[in-house]
């Protein structure tokens, strides 16, 4: 069953979760609905921060920091730069046909219903969490896992980034005019 935290008897952790969750969802919605792309981007930044908050809540400090650096720091800056490069504002938004809206809403509802229904029906075992007290998510442990077990994928990730970099440079370079 859905376990709704009782706000009256909520622990601080639960309250923090609720607040963070609300911020996350609200800013996500706002990202989508705001007409100005710059606003969207800023809402998205807030959304990412709240997700980082979730990570912190889950005691994943390293990830939270990385998340802020990568998403809020790098990716969102990229977005903002792009938006500014293109000089986008509200006028650029075209009229959306009704069928598009309908389709979007239908798929939103559908996917929500399917996912939630499945989740409810699959009756997950809730509440019995073990905590061995073992350290599993400190930077030290993560580093060991990453560089021992996931050595090769790690290297591949770096190659991927390199390739992406080169690709980006190539793509965004202004093409020489054809002679």
């Amino acid at each position: 069953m859905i376990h709704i935290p009782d706000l009256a008897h909520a622990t601080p952790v639960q309250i923090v979760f609720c607040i963070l969750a609300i911020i996350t969802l609200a800013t996500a919605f706002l990202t989508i609905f705001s007409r100005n792309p710059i606003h969207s981007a800023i809402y998205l930044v807030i959304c990412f921060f709240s997700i980082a908050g979730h990570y912190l809540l889950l005691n994943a400090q390293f990830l939270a920091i990385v998340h802020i650096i990568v998403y809020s720091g790098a990716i969102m800056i990229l977005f903002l730069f792009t938006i500014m490069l293109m000089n986008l504002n509200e006028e650029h938004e075209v009229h959306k046909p009704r069928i598009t809206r309908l389709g979007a809403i239908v798929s939103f509802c559908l996917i929500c219903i399917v996912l939630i229904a499945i989740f409810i029906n699959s009756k997950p075992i809730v509440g019995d969490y073990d905590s061995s007290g073992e350290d599993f998510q400190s930077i030290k442990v993560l580093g060991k896992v990453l560089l021992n077990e996931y050595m090769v994928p790690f290297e591949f990730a770096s190659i991927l980034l390199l390739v992406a970099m080169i690709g980006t440079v190539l793509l965004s370079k202004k093409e020489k005019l054809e002679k």
Partner: protein
Amino acid sequence: MNTNIALVLVLAPFLGFLINVFFGKSLGKSVSGMIGTVSVVVSFVATLYFFMQINNTKQPLSIALFDWIQISNIKVNFGFLLDQLSVLWLLFVTGIGALIHLYSFSYMHDDEKMHSFFAYLNLFIFFMILLVVGSNLLVLFIGWEGVGLCSYLLIGFWYKNQHFNDAAKKAFIMNRIGDLGLLVGIFIIGNLFSTLDYVSLKTAITGATNLNTYWISIAAFCLFIGACGKSAQIPLYTWLPDAMAGPTPVSALIHAATMVTAGIFMITRLNFVFDLAPQVQTIIAIIGAITALVAATIGLVQNDIKKVLAYSTVSQLGLMFLALGLGAYEVAVFHVITHAFFKACLFLGSGSVIHGLHGEQDMRKMGGLKKAMPITYITMLIASLAISGIPLFSGFFSKDEILLVAFEHSIPLWVVASIASIMTAFYMFRLMYLTFFNEFRGTAEQKHHLHESPALITFPLIVLAVLATIGGIISLPFPEYNWLNGYLAPLFTKVATEEHGLGSTEYLLMTLAVIGGVVGIAIAYIKYNKQNTVPAEDAAITGFSKVLYNKYYVDEIYNFVFVKTINELSRFFRDIVETSLSALVFGFGKVTNEIGFYGKKVQNGSIGLYLFAFVLGLCAIVSYLFLAQQ
């Protein structure tokens, strides 16, 4: 020794053929003709050797050369069987063949392709020998098809004329219809007895106790169809008159004396098979009689000298089949031999006439040639008397025996055969009177050039005329003087005609036959000599004689029923079936194309649509996985 001589016998004409094919042109006409003739004479001499030997020892010779085809349990050997029948056949094949080669030497001398003519003739003799001496049905089949091929080549010898080519093609295809019958007959025999060899076949049949007569009858019937094709019997006879398109020596050799008797040879050879199928024998007899009559009636009104002889040949072959059907194989063989003599003589004589008139074949434009061509006239007269059954000439004896046998078995058949022979007498003398008596009706130019043919042409005529006169002595109607029956006796399992003396009935019949012949001649004399009637022009022919003149329209009917049908069918297949099949295959491609055409509209580039589909798909998959787990 025997093997070597047999090989010489078979291969001499083939060698002649090869030399003429490869070197004929450079050797010149005379040499190539000489080679052609000599090679056949060599065969003739070799045949004589075997004839002497077999006539003395009465032992057939089997010569096996090499394994040819293997089918299941049958190993077909390429071998020869020289016995009474084959040697007898070889005698007149090579003998008459040699004479006709000699004749052609002069007859074809003006033709630029004389060497290939001799090559084909030699090849024909080779295949004919193979047909006759083969020790099994497959070697016979080689010869059988081979002579068909040579007949094709020789009918179409003047290949620039497409009508001649059509005639050649027609002959070949009609022969092949018969060949299919023969082939099927061979298959059935092979399936039944696991052998195709004559000797072992005979042993198998005579030794067997319970024979499958049903299948044997079918086999016999199929073989008979083969014989029909080759020997021009109803319904496959129409090619033979058309085959007269070939040079006259060819008509004499192939289409009168030798090849067309192959069917009779085959049936005689396999007499032990046919004896087991009495129904088929009855069919053979009836077909033979009908053919004799129908061909004779058509022969009554023909104006082309060679056509008359062609129908006469068909008619005579019908008589032979009648004899075969009645089980009187030796009688048929006897008639084959005498017929070979007088018919070859008649054809060669007509050739001499045509030669003298520079290619004119229409009897309405002949007449009065008696004085200009005395030797031709006399020899042809003798042959005509022989074919008409005038006593003491060879034809009298052989034809009389057939009529006798027919009378013994069935009166209607005898009546039909008798009518046919009366007609024979009539149209033969119609031919004689129109050609040789009264005044010449051709152009003055032709009249000026009228002359007797050279010695090379007349010599064979004389020889054949002599043979046509005295040929009857080999089988006189008196048992003690009947050499042929005794000679052939070992071949036959049962004696068809009881040896009997001549009673009063027989004498009566003989007299009747002679009277019939004389009446036929008399009518012809009155009509064409006394009254000097000249047959009407083509357009003026009316009534029943028009039907006869147009050969009962059989060619037209065949054309309409078979040739036209098959051609229309071909057109239908080509234009309708082929295109629709093709369209069907293209249809598959079209359907795929159409699906693609409409399918591509879904791929319209709208990411929204893609995503929507993606979401739906995702939901579907997740739901499916989830529901499947339940």
